[in-house]
């Protein structure tokens, strides 16, 4: 039971993007969504004011003035535009981002999630996560289903300080696609080679198969 790779988790999320969506990808696995071949015509937005970026720059062709929110050198599509930081977050705060995809330490069945502060730390790394989480139309989360010691990351309630409350709509882990449903998670799609019992054993909240649950095609 290992399930999906990191890229396959990103693929499972990216295939949910729809035409004309404005999409913001967080640092880590979410940036891998831009590697997925999808048919939807979408626009990528980055917190630093880059609207309409495309694939990563090829080695040797990096533009030193151009990075995405993860500091990676990207390319621009013909429709690209650049705005300053206040305008970039005006786009976010006014609800124009159709989906923000982020990593997380924990996500709860009540739709809360935590991704800015680890246990015992005094400081944290918020970046744009709280603005995006509070204001995007949809929050999708990608994370490994369990911690390295096997402890669950999908919980009934977050133990860590939350980034936003009640906002998560869809979660991709190595074991499947989940929707927070209050006191439990709905399993929308299961990773190949993984059983429902294995998912339940690895989850810190009840898991119910959603009507019409499918198997993910990697």
């Amino acid at each position, binding site marked *: 039971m290992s399930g999906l790779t990191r890229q396959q988790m990103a693929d499972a999320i990216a295939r949910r993007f729809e035409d004309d969506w404005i999409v913001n990808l967080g640092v880590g696995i979410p940036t891998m969504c831009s590697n997925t071949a999808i048919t939807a015509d979408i626009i990528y937005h980055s917190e630093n004011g880059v609207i309409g970026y495309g694939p990563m720059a090829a080695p040797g062709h*990096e533009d*030193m003035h151009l990075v995405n929110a993860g500091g990676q050198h990207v390319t621009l599509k013909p429709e690209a535009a650049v705005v300053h930081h206040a305008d970039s977050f005006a786009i976010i705060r006014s609800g124009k981002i159709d989906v923000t995809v982020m990593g997380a330490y924990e996500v709860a069945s009540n739709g809360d999630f935590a991704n800015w502060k680890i246990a015992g730390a005094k400081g944290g790394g918020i*970046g*744009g996560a*709280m603005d995006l989480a509070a204001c995007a139309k949809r929050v999708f989360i990608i994370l490994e289903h369990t911690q390295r010691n096997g402890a669950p990351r999908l919980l009934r309630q977050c133990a860590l300080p*939350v980034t936003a409350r009640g906002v998560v709509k869809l979660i991709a882990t190595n074991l499947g696609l989940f929707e927070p449903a209050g006191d439990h998670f709905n399993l929308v799609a299961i990773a190949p080679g993984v059983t429902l019992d294995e998912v339940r054993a690895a989850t810190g909240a009840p898991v119910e198969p959603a009507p019409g649950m499918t198997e993910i095609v990697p």
Partner: protein
Amino acid sequence: MARSKVYPGFAEAIHGIEDGSTIGFGGFAMPGVPFNLMKALQSSGAKGLTCVANTTGGAGQPRMPDIGHLVELGMVSKVICAFTAATRASDQLPFTKYYESGEVEAELVPQGTLAERMRAAGAGIPAFYTPTAVGTELAAGRETRVFAGREYLLEPALPLDYAFIRAHRADASGNLRFRRSQRNFNPIMAMAARVVIAEVENDIEPAGAFDPDDIHLAGIFVHRMVVIPPAPDGLWPQLREPRA
């Protein structure tokens, strides 16, 4: 004839920064960071600074001048940033241990709130309400208000004494242009500051060189400018070592 805004070097351009000043440093990742002005500040002897930037810096390699260096030199009493710890739990920012030990104060602010607090300062607005951070630890004990059924958090403007910024092109009157994602916080910090010091990547062009419609930051906001020399005398963005 107005006095020239062009200074011969970085040390001259940052001369006279008072102890206790609040300084904003533009930039996001490498683009638009005023590396040369930040390096010059290390030798200025200024103390008790409040430093405002997206991050305290220092997790990526090669390490460039950042707030962490100023903290290590004992010049900083407080930082206001969207990152006071690294995004990756396995990374450690140079700043973090000074914060953990209580030597330096920190205010952790969501990135969009940080930008808007400075935008508000530059726009003469004392405070604003935002939905960001409602229901989180950051909002504990603070004033919120409900508008149309949704709860918002009151955030104060963040005025700066100085803004250190980096631009691509400038004319002699201080009109600036930025390139690609270099723009980021730079024009907002400039508008929020009493004194704006810009390092510029190209030779200063005569006034009138830019079409007035194509200026990103009007020269009335810019007080001092220095042209960045070629490497190795000047500091330029580097490719970061790739991360797994």
